[in-house]
């Protein structure tokens, strides 16, 4: 396997890690938005407080890795989706500060304002990321000098919007299930939300697949063994979520919804490979892992960095998540 392919996989591992990890705290943010009770919101926020920042780093590192491994893709996608990305940045900023600010003043209205800001940005982010991913999968018009050739409104096509809603549904499911294992008093309600969001996720996945059949059939590569493996994983995760939720086994349900999300990201990756940004106007302008990569030396250097760094990251991330396992305990250090 070439280094180009390895880097394609690694970038999807980083983005998939982001979807699985930050997915649950984005979903928890959605729960915060729809909770009227101050005490409940505090519980939800503190369930993710120690880990959300580390989760978000998967996105930043994914962005950095894309820059390093495939600079033209990074440049074209980011400059092309300019306005959408500025909204993403505003949401990421508000999310980071509102969780920190909320507990700093003991006043219900102050908390309410920051919880709302946290909730809205948590709701918008999955939609925006989903729409962006949808457009990358479907392809965009690319100009002769390698820039994005469409407008902002071209990004809001039906397929991309379905993927955006799919991302929101999946994060909501994931977050509700995560919180159901953290929060005794709201457990039954959270499990119910998890079940509904699971059904929505499944329905939207089917809708996205149908829409892909219509707009981007090259994504559906059933004959590929990786695609089949991802489909099997997706089916297993999807089947396990409602069973575990029914038995109120939050940890198993959480692992199953993680598998679901990871499998969906894998399916996207398999469908896209070896392209990174398909061109809808001229196939010759499609950015692939071969015509848009960095030099062999850079890919190799980066690979060594990843080999040294990522095992360390995974090890201490696991330890930190382990330290904060179990039910939320509100202490003076809490938000």
């Amino acid at each position: 396997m070439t280094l180009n392919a390895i880097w394609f996989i690694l970038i999807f591992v980083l983005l998939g890690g982001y979807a699985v990890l930050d997915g649950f705290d984005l979903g928890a943010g959605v729960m915060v938005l729809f909770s009227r009770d101050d005490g409940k919101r505090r519980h939800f926020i503190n369930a993710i407080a120690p880990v959300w920042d580390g989760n978000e780093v998967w996105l930043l590192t994914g962005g950095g890795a894309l820059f390093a491994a495939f600079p033209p893709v990074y440049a074209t996608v980011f400059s092309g989706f300019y306005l959408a990305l500025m909204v993403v940045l505003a949401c990421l900023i508000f999310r980071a500060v509102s969780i920190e600010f909320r507990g700093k003043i003991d006043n219900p209205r102050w908390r309410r304002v920051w919880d709302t800001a946290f909730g809205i940005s948590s709701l918008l982010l999955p939609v925006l990321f989903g729409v962006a991913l949808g457009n990358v999968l479907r392809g965009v018009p690319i100009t002769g000098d390698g820039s994005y050739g469409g407008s902002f409104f071209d990004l809001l096509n039906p397929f991309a919007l379905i993927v955006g809603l799919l991302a929101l549904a999946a994060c909501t499911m994931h977050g509700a299930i995560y919180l159901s294992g953290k929060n005794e008093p709201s457990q039954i309600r959270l499990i119910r939300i998890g079940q509904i969001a699971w059904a929505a996720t499944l329905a939207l996945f089917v809708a996205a697949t149908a829409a892909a059949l219509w707009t981007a059939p090259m994504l559906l590569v059933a004959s590929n063994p990786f695609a089949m493996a991802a489909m099997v994983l997706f089916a297993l995760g999807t089947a396990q979520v409602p069973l575990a939720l029914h038995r109120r086994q939050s940890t198993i349900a959480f692992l199953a919804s993680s598998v679901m999300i990871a499998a969906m990201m894998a399916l996207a990756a398999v469908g896209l490979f070896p392209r990174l940004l398909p061109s809808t106007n001229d196939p010759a302008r499609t950015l692939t892992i071969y015509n848009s990569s960095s030099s062999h030396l850079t890919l190799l250097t980066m690979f060594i960095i990843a080999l040294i760094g990522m095992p360390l990251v995974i090890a201490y991330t696991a330890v930190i998540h382990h330290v904060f396992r179990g039910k939320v305990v509100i202490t003076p250090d809490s938000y």
Partner: protein
Amino acid sequence: MNGLDVGFLCRFQFALTAGFHFLFPPITIGLAWLLVIVEWRAWKHHDAVADAAARFFGKLLGLTFAVGVATGIPMEFQFGTNWARYSKFVGDIFGAPLAAEGVFAFFLESGFLGLYLFGRNRVAKKWHFFAICMVAFGAMISAFWILAANSWMQTPAGYVLRDGRAELTSFYQAICNPSMWPRFLHTMLAAFVAGSFFMAGISAAVLLRDRGSAVARYTLKLAVICGLVVSVLEVFPSGHLHAREVAREQPEKFAAIEGLYSSQSSAPMVMFAIPFTPPPTLKAKAEVPGLLSWLAFGNMHARIPGINEFPSDGIPPLWMTFVSFHNMVVLGMYFIFVMAWAALRLWQGKLFEGTKFLKLLVISIPLPLAACELGWMAAEVGRQPWAVYHVLRTADAFSSNLSAGVVLASILLFSLIYIVLLILYLYLLRVKVIHGPDAVVEQELPV
């Protein structure tokens, strides 16, 4: 609107977002290392005062860190959004340190910051101490990689130009390029100065409200001792070494920041002047003959090329570079002066008394940050008109597909958010100081 406008707006946006972001990391890097000392004392000496101090400044670290992280996120994305041509040109080299920063630093600092802030009663003391060490270490590694990337723009090395882009030939040379170590040392010490002044100023503010605060007395003393050492080191040897490096590697920048508009042997050091252009002249000048030649090249008679020796389309803006650099130097001297005075008062046993000096420490909190901003301006404006020194012009670096309207819209968006953030940050800082440190708990808390 034409392409020049978009280029200017992209530069303005980058200056705005990077400049605002750069207010926070120096505090967190400096404060995190000071907290390593405080936590060590609390843990090893079972010192209840140090423990209360760590809790108090730990909260301020969390607050500053959050704003720093939030405002740092746009940095990772802006090269792609606003500087697409730059990204394509240098991605082979520039992307790697950014990704390395994510893998080696961001995960470390964010993961362990959560453990540090929320894990006080969940993990053993030694692991809690380990967590603050990793936060401080991670913040420093983060600075290392981003400064390596920035240094490569100043003094590119380890690459060849091929197929219209810069291609890596040696990762080691690209990272350890000629200006990397002087810049890293200078910026780290600047962060320590900022952290020391932050801790000293906050402690002084607490003392002004509560004279008896044992916590504030302890942290003020610590901040003054550390602050004096790092303020001196920042000017000598660090500032001196960095200036010598610039004199050798980027002579146009050196001439611009020092106000040397025509080549000279026995070049004088301009201590004060008001620059005018065009033609570039300095008025009301006070200078020390031969000093610049001696400092830069160790020889009083060394010839230093002036601005007149470089092509007119290859020199940086003169006014801004001169003014920012000289004000940074003045501030650097001021830091030594204030910290030496504070140390003297500490020695005399007067540091915790009086009002005026404590107030001076409070109003000095933002000055190291001003010095950081000025130094950064001198470095980055001094690199102009190049995005990558002598390789890629800034005018050829910004995204060509953007319209002035969308960039302006994003500038307005960021300006609005940053104004709100700054007001809230200062407000919350004030609330925390008024609340003050929690009462010192003499008994060890159960783990």
